[in-house]
């Protein structure tokens, strides 16, 4: 049975949006608000805001296995479980079944996916940082990758628009490497996070501890259909208050309100149809995920927002006489320059003092130490390029502190009902350079159950990332020690691409069609009615979490596309 949501299906649309995650939601909203009749296609199931957040109100004892993944779960989510936090009973239903959705690894790649309406916008970590001028200039400056055809000023008004709509907590800091935005009030530091901020301010001139910037409502300002954070910190399950930004709570309802959106879940787009006569794309080929029925939808423009890897996979499958190696792949760069942030390196420690202090409420965000390496002449003499930021939080230990000891008896039980020591932990997130040889390809010998080729990854972190990791651990330890923390311990665990869930770069933006796939408005150079605005379009990775930038880029491209279409229509009428 074919199910369409919101609007009635049409014979032809002004626009098709592939995907409903962070960028698909934004494309849908902006195109619909500009008056374009828009078909939004999602390969996974429908997820209704609130009513489909089935675990949102469960306490640990409401889960049969107290939240742990069972052996049966692990069988189906062996790769999804590689994050360590995705496949427990509270959130496993947001992550794909690896047996149903296989992929191949020349080198280990942790491909974490959510196939449903809302995509990863439902489970994202909500960190929302602007990129700075130095991020857009980096490729040009050190010669890695290709120069971005846009600069900070091209995106600044779109960052404003996005932040105003989604709600981002934060504080104004006047840092050149992390531009300020339009902020909701921050989640204030607890007393030990405050100690860190004070201690770092007293000990370092090059770095600063700030309240993290994250997509939450933390005030009584009016957001359509959403309310402020209730401090449950169960964001990954879907928020019944709509307090954090997701497509489901925010952009899709906005698109729906225009009356211009038709949403079709269970629609696997596998090809964009290229029309040789017009030199443009005419529509998309779709397989219904449930019935396996094939169909075609037509439109004037197409927005690829399926996520970096799926979007690239669709383009690669879109072969024609003109494009034998995939749609818009004149450069040969399609599928290359795959990046993700490397992390799993940092430090933890304890704080002596504040024994009588505690907090109430589970805030969903902690602190951030913006990049401080390679940002000016003073910090520019490292043996690696680019930089990293640090993210973390402090809290008092709970009963878990007793695991791995030998104590027992009534006293132990009594002791564990009290809060334990104050602990702090932080993790560094580092930039990954764009390497041509880090790539994804399609395997036509190994098809999925819809007869479509599977993705193969051949991607690794290299010398620059490894050298940066040495510095990350060293500086994380030094930061905590200088700020007066005790028992400071560095950690550095193996980290494989994909695990940061910031995969990007496989249809990069650039000035030249010989070395890049899309232009500065995200149009495929040679097929200008196809736009790629998800992570695939990124020419570098910076070290900031990328979603806010994806949203700004998408909003900008969607408004550009809509204005162009409306102008053409006007001209045609006249």
């Amino acid at each position, binding site marked *: 049975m074919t199910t369409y949501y919101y609007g009635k299906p049409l014979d032809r649309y002004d626009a098709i949006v592939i995907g409903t995650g962070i960028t698909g939601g934004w494309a849908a909203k902006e195109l619909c608000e500009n008056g374009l009749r828009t078909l939004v296609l999602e390969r996974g199931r429908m997820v209704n805001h609130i009513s489909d957040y*089935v*675990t949102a*109100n*469960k*306490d*640990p*004892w*409401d*889960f*049969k*296995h*107290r*939240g*742990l*993944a*069972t*052996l*049966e779960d*692990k069988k189906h989510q062996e790769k999804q479980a590689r994050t360590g936090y995705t496949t427990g*009973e509270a959130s496993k239903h947001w992550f794909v079944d690896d047996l149903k959705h296989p992929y191949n690894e020349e080198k280990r790649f942790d491909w974490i996916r959510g196939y449903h309406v809302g995509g990863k916008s439902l489970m994202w970590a909500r960190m929302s940082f602007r990129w700075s001028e130095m991020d857009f200039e980096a490729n040009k400056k050190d010669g890695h990758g290709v120069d971005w055809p846009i600069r900070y000023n091209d995106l600044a008004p779109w960052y404003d628009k996005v932040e105003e709509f989604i709600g981002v907590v934060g504080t104004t800091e006047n840092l050149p490497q992390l531009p300020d935005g339009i902020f909701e009030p921050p*989640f*204030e*530091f*607890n*007393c030990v996070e*405050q100690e860190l901020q004070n201690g770092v301010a007293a000990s370092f001139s090059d770095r600063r501890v700030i309240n993290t910037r994250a997509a939450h409502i933390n005030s009584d300002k009016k957001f359509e259909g959403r309310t402020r*954070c*209730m*401090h*449950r910190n169960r964001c990954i399950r879907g928020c019944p208050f709509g307090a954090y930004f997701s497509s489901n709570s925010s952009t899709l309802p906005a698109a729906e309100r225009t009356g211009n959106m038709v949403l079709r879940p269970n629609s696997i787009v596998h090809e964009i149809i290229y029309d040789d006569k017009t030199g443009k794309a005419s529509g998309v080929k779709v397989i219904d995920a449930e019935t396996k029925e094939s169909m075609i939808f037509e439109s004037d423009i197409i927005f690829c927002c399926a996520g970096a890897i799926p979007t690239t996979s669709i383009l690669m499958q879109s072969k024609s006489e003109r494009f034998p190696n995939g749609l818009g792949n004149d450069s040969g760069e399609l599928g290359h320059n795959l990046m993700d942030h490397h992390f799993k390196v940092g430090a933890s420690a304890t704080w002596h003092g*504040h024994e*009588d*202090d*505690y*907090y*109430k*409420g*589970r*805030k969903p965000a902690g602190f951030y130490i913006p990049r401080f390496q390679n940002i000016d002449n003073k910090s520019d003499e490292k043996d690696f390029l680019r930089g990293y930021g640090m993210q973390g939080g402090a809290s*008092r230990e*709970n*009963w878990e502190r*007793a*695991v*791995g*000891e*030998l*104590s*027992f*008896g*009534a006293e*132990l*039980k*009594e002791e*564990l*009902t*009290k*809060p*334990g020591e104050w602990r702090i932990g932080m993790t560094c997130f580092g930039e990954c350079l764009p390497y041509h040889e880090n790539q994804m390809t399609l395997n036509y010998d190994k098809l999925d159950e819809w007869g479509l080729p599977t993705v193969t990854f051949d991607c690794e972190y290299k010398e620059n990332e490894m050298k940066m990791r040495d510095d990350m651990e060293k500086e994380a330890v030094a930061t905590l020690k200088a700020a007066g923390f005790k028992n400071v311990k560095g950690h550095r665990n193996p980290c494989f691409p994909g695990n940061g869930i910031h995969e990007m770069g496989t249809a990069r933006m650039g000035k030249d069609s010989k070395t890049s796939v899309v232009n500065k408005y995200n149009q495929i150079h040679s097929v200008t009615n196809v736009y790629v605005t998800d992570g695939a379009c990124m020419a570098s990775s910076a070290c900031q979490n990328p979603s806010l930038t994806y949203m700004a880029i998408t909003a900008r491209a969607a408004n550009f596309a809509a204005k162009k279409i409306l102008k053409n229509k006007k001209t045609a009428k006249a």
Partner: protein
Amino acid sequence: MDRRTALKNLTLATGYTIAAPSILGVLQSCKTDTLTWIPEFLSPAQGFIVKQLVDVILPTSSLPGALDVNIPEFIDLMYKDVFDENEKQKFLKGAEVFETKFSSVFNKKATKGTKENYTDILKTYFDIPKEKQQSVFNLLKKNISDISENNREKYHIYTFLTSVRDQSIFGYFTSQKIGEDVLAYESIPIDYIPCGNMDELTNGRAWSL
């Protein structure tokens, strides 16, 4: 009611989906009863041993004990559904070696052991100086093939006992009774207070969530 039957019937009815609170309500309404409890993963003898041990590890005092929140059932369920084959086998081997050790120490079957016997034997393994504790944890990190023959009994017994202890603590503090009534509990905190006096905020208790 035999809660195993109750649970089994209910999970059959729900097709083994995530248990709804009402189902767990049934699980939590019946206190562990050795006479009627038949473990699903453990043997009846191992079930008896685990029950005795958790009662020593987290005894009932002014606060509820392990048996008040069905920890033996919880451990049985974890080993049935959550732990992998390797962990299952290590646990079972440990239980077997412990059972043998118990018989040789007390000259009777472990299933005839009293609470006093179990307290005594647990003390010999857990009431040890800090530096010896460290050597125990070092031993537990090793592969069995790297452990000398005369250390193997120790390895198996500690594998078993530390797992029972850790699972007891996990199950106890994530149970409804402890989570809602003993620890400080706010399902929806609404407000956030970044820093305040612990006694005023929670009466000195840790937050359960």
